[in-house]
């Protein structure tokens, strides 16, 4: 029983990180119908910037805030300068541009910071929290907490502010929103900025666990895809819940199903995606897309 609880808890911790990157993916997908393959690498690059700031002697939370600000502006600029010129190109052309961004960020990070793994500090205390026989890592609990806080802030922003409303309108019906005076182009750019910010949070939370290196996000991006698929690409809350579920299922299956072990863990996650897609293509919490004929 204790092993079970322990696995669930550590599953939730990694799941929270998958969830926050999945959240970033879902935000861009909802606003622009594009799956941003570069999301993971953007997050990785932001984390390196945080590392530089920490090396320069800044206190953690200041570096944290600074990184988020840079990530936000960076995401905004990428939309304006790189994505906007291909806005009207076929969707696959935009996907290729995203893949281009992915390799650029990965290569630049390797070039500037080298491919050697670097330890990255956690803002939370090192001493684990013990509850009965179950041991929680303080960082794990903190990471889940941070993810939930981000989700709550986004919820408040999108539900209860005029800007959030304008962004949702621009994503849902660009033409009508433009007629109502919403600056649709800028709303999309803001969406990219926010997604980059959420991605940066995911990067900062995952780096202490996996060490900082240019390829640290590629594995996590895959799980983020799985989470977003499971939860539904149209539902931000679904994406986070999907992340937590994927994390837990992955851990439990790896522990309890003898022929799978750690080698086939990823395959299980993928089989899960396939099953979900086949039974409920829009994901557990997603809205089915209705076409007007």
């Amino acid at each position, binding site marked *: 029983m204790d092993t079970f609880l322990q696995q669930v808890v550590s599953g939730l911790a990694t799941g929270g990180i998958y969830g926050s990157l999945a959240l970033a993916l879902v935000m861009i*997908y909802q606003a622009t119908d594009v*799956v941003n393959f570069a999301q993971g690498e953007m997050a990785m690059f932001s984390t390196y910037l945080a590392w530089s700031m920490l090396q320069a002697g800044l206190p953690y939370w200041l570096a944290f805030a600074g990184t988020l600000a840079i990530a936000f502006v960076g995401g905004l600029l990428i939309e304006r300068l*790189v994505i906007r*010129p*291909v806005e009207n*190109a*076929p969707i*696959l*052309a*935009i*996907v*290729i*541009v995203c*893949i*281009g*961004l*992915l*390799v*650029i960020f*990965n*290569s*630049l990070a*390797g*070039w500037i910071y080298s491919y050697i793994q670097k330890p990255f500090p956690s803002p939370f205390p090192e001493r684990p929290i013990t509850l009965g026989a179950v041991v929680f890592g303080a960082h794990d609990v903190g990471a889940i907490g941070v993810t939930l806080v981000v989700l709550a802030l986004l919820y408040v922003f999108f539900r209860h502010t005029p800007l959030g409303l304008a962004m949702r309108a621009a994503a849902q019906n660009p033409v009508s929103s433009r007629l109502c005076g919403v600056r649709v182009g800028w709303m999309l750019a803001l969406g990219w900025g926010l997604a980059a910010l959420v991605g940066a949070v995911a990067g900062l939370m995952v780096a202490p666990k996996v060490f900082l290196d240019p390829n640290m996000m590629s594995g996590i991006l*895959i799980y983020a*895809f*799985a989470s977003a*698929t499971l939860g539904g*690409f149209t539902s931000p809350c679904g994406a986070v819940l999907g992340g937590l579920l994927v994390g837990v299922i992955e851990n439990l299956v790896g522990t309890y199903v003898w022929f799978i072990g750690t*080698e*086939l863990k*990823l*395959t299980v996650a*993928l*089989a899960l*995606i*396939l099953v979900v*897609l*086949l039974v409920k*293509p*829009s994901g557990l919490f997603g809205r089915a897309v209705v076409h007007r*004929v």
Partner: protein
Amino acid sequence: MADHVSTPAVARAAEIRWARVAPWRWTLAGWLAVLVVAGVLPFTLSDFRLFQFTQVFIYAMALLGLNILTGYNGQISLGHGAFYAVGAYTAAVMIDRWSIPYGWTIPAAALLCLVVGFLFGIPALRLEGLYLALATFALALAVPQILKYFEHWTGGSQGIVLSKPAAPLGLPLTADQWLYLVSLAVLLALVVLAWNLLRGRTGRALVAIRDNPIAAEAMGINSALYKSLTFGVSAAYTGVAGALSALAIAFVAPDAFNVFLSITFLVGIVIGGLASISGAIFGALFIQFVPNWAQDISKAAPWAIYGVFLIVFMYAMPRGIAGSLRLLWRRLTRPNRRSP
């Protein structure tokens, strides 16, 4: 052609006829010229260059397969590396474990991939767009792990080492020249097959399903059958490419068939030009040679240069190389179009 006619009206008519007839003749002439050059190359190039061009042909087959599925039929696949791997391992296991002659491995890979692709195509019917892309992406991701798991057959992460097939009947060719010519011949056969498949009724059905599935169904096209068969044919093309690549490289290992291979294929068809046969060849040249050029330009961050290339290409030619050439041709042949 139009220089010996005198009156403007006749000249105009001739010009229109010329413009209509010529593309097809010019295209054929272009293909023949390329073929002649390709036939001469193996006797002038070094073995390494020859290997690179063999690889281009092999990629072109895989891209052709993916283009039939994604370009013509509109089903986005991010998982064609999986079929490439199935083809490669079919060839490797047949040769290494069962000592079957090289020649049989290619049709076997085609057949196996046809069946696997068709079977994967049936559940894929429920998915479209992004969701299909993600499902196939999952397939591509799972491949290296699954290959490592069945160690008994696949040799695990060590892979399987093969030897390059020598030219038969005592032909005076090196192994590399022989492989080059075989790949060229197979590619040619596949191009002719694809052209015949796509230019008539079947091709129109595929494009109709892509552009308006409901209207296509209403016209009596069996959408489900066509879509899953397209998946099968596309996988078979890619499987043949995989089998040939196993022979050309003389080595297969799970990590060669990672996700990046599937993404590279997608890059190839989009850069080359969707829904075009020549696009597969342009795309294959791009994915084979551009990474090398990027390496030459900057040793420190070659992939950054490659990424910049990708983005610049998409800015300059959002419809790919073949699409841009088609546009250019149309402009050249109608230089003095009057305002209507």
